[in-house]
């Protein structure tokens, strides 16, 4: 018999097996075809109600999940903390239990606190999909990143060298990417100022590099991360200008390389800081492909998890 996902919730890449990851990626191929057809909607989840609970700002991820849910014909409710009773002091558990009382069966949650998705999965009776929990994980981003790399280069992740460049310390995208890429057998390097690279990150099997030139020369794909000023309490580097000079990805740096590399960025972009417009808008950049593939990946995740109900 066909086998599905080994998990009931999607909390992080860490909990997924290699087979789970491959299944999500291959299912997303079909969904990408589907959303490029004249009729994009399929009826698979028509009897399912999904809540998008966003306790932290988001444009791409929320819209991407919302579109994925609509294209699978699910009923959806959207919820954001700023316009709700959370601002009156209601707890997370009470808020979510109220949603479940209204017969919501699946919850897509983004929350500023690491571990909140895991906490929810242990305490409420609904399927939980983590859409980013603080600095912990952002599993669907890592899945769509891997999908986009393979889609563009037509090579398997296991044959690739990927450099993750920027604010590694505060990035849930970096952690999920490292887990996923290492599970699939890729070589991974992290690059950034020493203050923004967590201690002992080598124990995850990644190479640490502080020279952006060397990192770019080494890799096939560079995943450039945003400087997360909202999560930085201390001054990790002297100024944004200095960061851009030392670590910003620009055309001059790319022109010096011996081979062309693929450039990715999970968005939102700080143009002129971690990446320059001449790179972000160049033919080597797959930033908008990542956004397109995000819908297909999220459709695959929702579809496969719904099959586990």
């Amino acid at each position, binding site marked *: *018999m*066909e*086998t*599905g*996902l080994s998990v009931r919730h999607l909390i992080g890449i860490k909990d997924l097996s290699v087979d789970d990851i491959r*299944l999500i990626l291959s*299912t997303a*191929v*079909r969904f990408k*075809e*589907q959303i490029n*057809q*004249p*009729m994009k909607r*399929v*009826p*698979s*989840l028509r*009897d*399912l109600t999904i809540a998008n609970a966003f306790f932290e700002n988001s444009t791409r991820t929320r819209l991407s999940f919302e579109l994925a849910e609509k294209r699978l014909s699910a009923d959806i409710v959207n919820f954001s903390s700023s316009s709700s009773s959370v601002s009156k002091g209601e707890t997370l558990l009470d808020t979510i239990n109220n949603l479940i009382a209204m017969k919501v069966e699946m919850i897509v949650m983004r929350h500023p606190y690491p571990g909140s998705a895991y906490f929810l999965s242990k305490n409420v009776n609904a399927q939980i999909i983590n859409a980013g929990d603080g600095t912990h994980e952002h599993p669907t981003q890592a899945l769509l990143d891997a999908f986009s790399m393979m889609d563009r280069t037509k090579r398997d992740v296991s044959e690739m060298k990927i450099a993750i460049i920027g604010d590694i310390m505060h990035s849930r995208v970096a952690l999920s990417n490292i887990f996923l890429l290492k599970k699939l057998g890729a070589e991974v390097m992290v690059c950034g100022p020493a203050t923004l690279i967590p201690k002992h990150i080598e124990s995850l099997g990644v190479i640490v590099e502080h020279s952006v030139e060397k990192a770019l020369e080494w890799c096939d794909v560079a995943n450039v991360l945003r400087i997360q000023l909202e999560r930085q309490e201390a001054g990790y580097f002297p100024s944004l200008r200095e960061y851009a000079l030392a670590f910003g990805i620009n055309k001059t740096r790319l022109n010096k390389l011996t081979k062309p590399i693929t450039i990715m960025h999970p968005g939102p972009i700080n143009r002129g800081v971690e990446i320059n417009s001449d790179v972000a808008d160049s033919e080597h950049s797959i930033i908008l492909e990542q956004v397109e593939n995000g819908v297909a990946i999220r459709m695959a995740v929702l*579809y*496969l998890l*719904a*099959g*586990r*109900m």
Partner: protein
Amino acid sequence: MPEHNTILSGKKFSITLDRLCYQLIENHGKFINSAIIGLQPRGIYLAQALQQRLNTILAPIKVPYGELDTTFHRDDFRTHKGPLIPSSQKMELVVENKNIIFVDDVLYTGRSIRAGMDALLDFGRPASVELLVLVDRIYSRQLPIEPNYIGLQVDTRASQKVKVNWKAAGEEDSVWLMTE
């Protein structure tokens, strides 16, 4: 493994496919405005076999051909025991105003064909849709769906299964009636 009786194989199997091809040619001529679509997962082997034969008979005409996956339109997604993993799809033809011939190996309850028709409409509005099956399990329909072209009709019990084996799938061309 359950017991099985071979109900079609060898020369008879081949003659049946030829007969189906000529029946199609009778109605669709040179396939100017017609296309064959195999339903995933098992209907594509029959569709490929028919297309090959038709291309030989009608040479140099190439019969338009597609493979359709019906997984996302099935009505048992939440009640099915295991997960429904989608198959690949090959739909590089224009469906709008075409005469479409759906091809599947076995027709049983009719539910796959219903899902297939919904999946097909995602690509446009065909002029007509016909159904060709190699094996028709008569008296088993749960929906008002009947085939236009039939390779073989069999009266079966619900506990039995019909399996069509294909050389292209590494088996020997044959139809089995399997009893638990």
